[in-house]
């Protein structure tokens, strides 16, 4: 009984202490599991002392060794698999954003480029004028010119000059990019962002983060 009480205290301390130190559920589970394993091995050795028969003792210890080995391997596989799935879910989200952003900005960019190069020579407008003529800002006080139908990607005009128009695409919800320190156009940091430059020589697309 004392052994069980002591083990309970140790496992609880390891679990809660690790969680409040790291705020990571898996770290706490691993810590609690490791301490529980140590307590269990001690308990097994103690419980299987004589007068337990040698046959029963060996059966218990061999079965325990197989079970502990198997569960430890399974534990490790689950740990790596769930972390992989966690990262994979985020990867899918980033790719979805980049694909949608490319699609939206391509449409806008090509329309502007075509209008610019197919206009009459006698009434030639600048790139900025062509762009402004074909664009309506969603909010006059912001630079947002479009949000896709699903409401997940917003397109903004970062810079509009006679020689170059720069469009920026960002996610409307938080999607972390590769670089946590990247300064986003809207003032946030570390979020995904794509950029399209429209010049008279063509369109130039870049995944910034």
């Amino acid at each position, binding site marked *: 009984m004392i052994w069980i009480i002591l083990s309970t205290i140790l496992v609880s301390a390891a679990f809660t202490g690790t969680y409040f130190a790291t705020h990571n559920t898996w770290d706490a589970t691993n810590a609690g599991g490791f301490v529980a394993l140590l307590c269990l091995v001690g308990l097994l050795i103690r419980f299987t002392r004589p007068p337990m028969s040698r046959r029963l003792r060996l059966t218990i210890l061999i079965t325990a060794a197989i079970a502990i080995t198997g569960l430890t391997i399974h534990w490790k596989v689950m740990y790596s698999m769930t972390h992989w799935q966690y*990262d994979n879910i985020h990867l899918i989200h980033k790719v979805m954003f980049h694909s949608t952003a490319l699609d939206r900005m391509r449409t806008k960019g090509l329309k502007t480029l075509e209008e610019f190069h197919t206009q009459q020579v006698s009434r030639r407008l600048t790139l900025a004028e062509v762009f402004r003529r074909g664009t309506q800002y969603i909010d006059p006080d912001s630079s947002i010119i479009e949000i896709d139908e699903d409401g997940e990607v917003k397109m903004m005009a970062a810079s509009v000059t006679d020689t170059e128009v720069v469009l920026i695409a960002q996610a409307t*919800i938080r999607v972390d990019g590769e670089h946590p320190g990247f300064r986003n156009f809207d003032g946030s940091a570390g979020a995904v962002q794509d950029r399209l430059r429209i010049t008279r020589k063509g369109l130039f697309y870049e995944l910034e983060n």
Partner: protein
Amino acid sequence: MKTDRLHWVWMVCYVGVALILGGILNLALYPSDLLGRSVAITPFPYIFAGGLRIADGLDRFSGNQIIREWKSEHLFLLLSILVSYILAVPSFIWALKERQQRRENQPGRKFPIRIVLAFAIGGAFVVPMLLISVIGPVASSSVRATMQKAQTLVVNRDAVMYELNMMALKAQSSYFVPLGEGGCGGRWMNIQRKGAPTVTLEELQVQEPDLNRVYAELFPQRPSKFVLEVYSEDSLAIWGIGAETWEGSLFVNKDGQQGKTQAHAVVTPRKVIVLWHLESTPHGF
């Protein structure tokens, strides 16, 4: 066997009853949906922890901020470790020891309620643990390998399709830019020069596709191969052949290889359709 309540047949029955009652109790008192954040006491706390990790991933996908604070799930997780490994297993082993001693020294007429309860409740945790310890490592490793292989193929396909979209963008952009400014001047094929293409694969290809940087950590991409066919002044097609192979596939790729992931883009000045040959999913018309 009838009078010996500690006979092995009876012991198996006690564990069986405990397993059934335990299952009913869990279903009745606790919704056991791991991703629903309300769980029961489980002999596999690491599976529970894994479920919480995936639930966090889905929350993040939805744009929710993950708040790391102590919740009821953590209490259940701790209880699972304590009940399974500190209470159930020792109880089971104690019951085995007491059973042996009772049968050897003092069979008795009184029903051995303590031994039966300890064995049954302990066994309800120990038996699933023993089963999983044998089946679990093999099954989970196999599942992981299958998932990773499948996802590698899907990612390679997506990477090829994205590169095709980028190449299509360059072709479309070049179409509208006049010859004097380095573009194709409104035609991808020079009819006057016997149909000579005005755009080449070298001009369209990207040396280091940006999206490969996104994939780098989980699914590093090897270079894909491309084939360009210009049909007319305002239509062309680009085939992208990935580096990954679909096992058992007899499909012959555009460049003569076999079984590789392949997609192709049909491009006009204002539209592009990207198709994956095995699914033929139109994208972006």
